[in-house]
């Protein structure tokens, strides 16, 4: 069992959001913002997983 809510639907515009990130290439903290992706005309793949230090 799990408790989730169904939110976004396919074909919908995704509301802008921001995430704090760790960027392994720069070995530094940063942020990801959907608005920047749209401004830069880039695709985004979001890949959710349960937790760090587990068997992904």
């Amino acid at each position: 069992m799990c408790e989730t809510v169904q939110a976004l639907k396919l074909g919908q515009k995704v509301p802008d959001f921001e995430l704090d990130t760790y960027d392994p290439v720069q070995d530094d903290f940063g942020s990801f913002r959907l608005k920047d992706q749209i401004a830069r005309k880039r695709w985004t793949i979001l890949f959710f997983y349960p937790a760090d230090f587990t068997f992904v």
Partner: protein
Amino acid sequence: MGCDVVTVSADTKFVHLAWKKSEGELEKVRYAMGSDPTGRVSRMFGVYDESAGLDLRGTFVINPEGTLLNSEVNFYNLGRNIDELMRKFKANVYMGKKANEACPSKWKDEGDKTLVNPGAKMVGKVHEALEG
């Protein structure tokens, strides 16, 4: 085709850093590791499990206009097939350029058979369209 992969879990960026540096399996990882400790973004995509405070294995493809084109959500114990994710991503990029074409299930890459102008004429004749 510019694309950025961002992984997301409820862990903080500090834990992402520690995990990346300690786990040998992540040595080649180059994508940004996003942190969603409040579950706000995860809820938006319907993958936040309120009973556990964890994210289900959800994958989402968003085009450069910000439109959600794919969603796939697996329960905790099933891993994702990256080949299938890449197939769907390539198909979306292709269809973004060719608005009158559709990519059938066997489509793998540019040059493979597509369905051109799927419409009334193709009803009952998909087999012929795919073979032709």
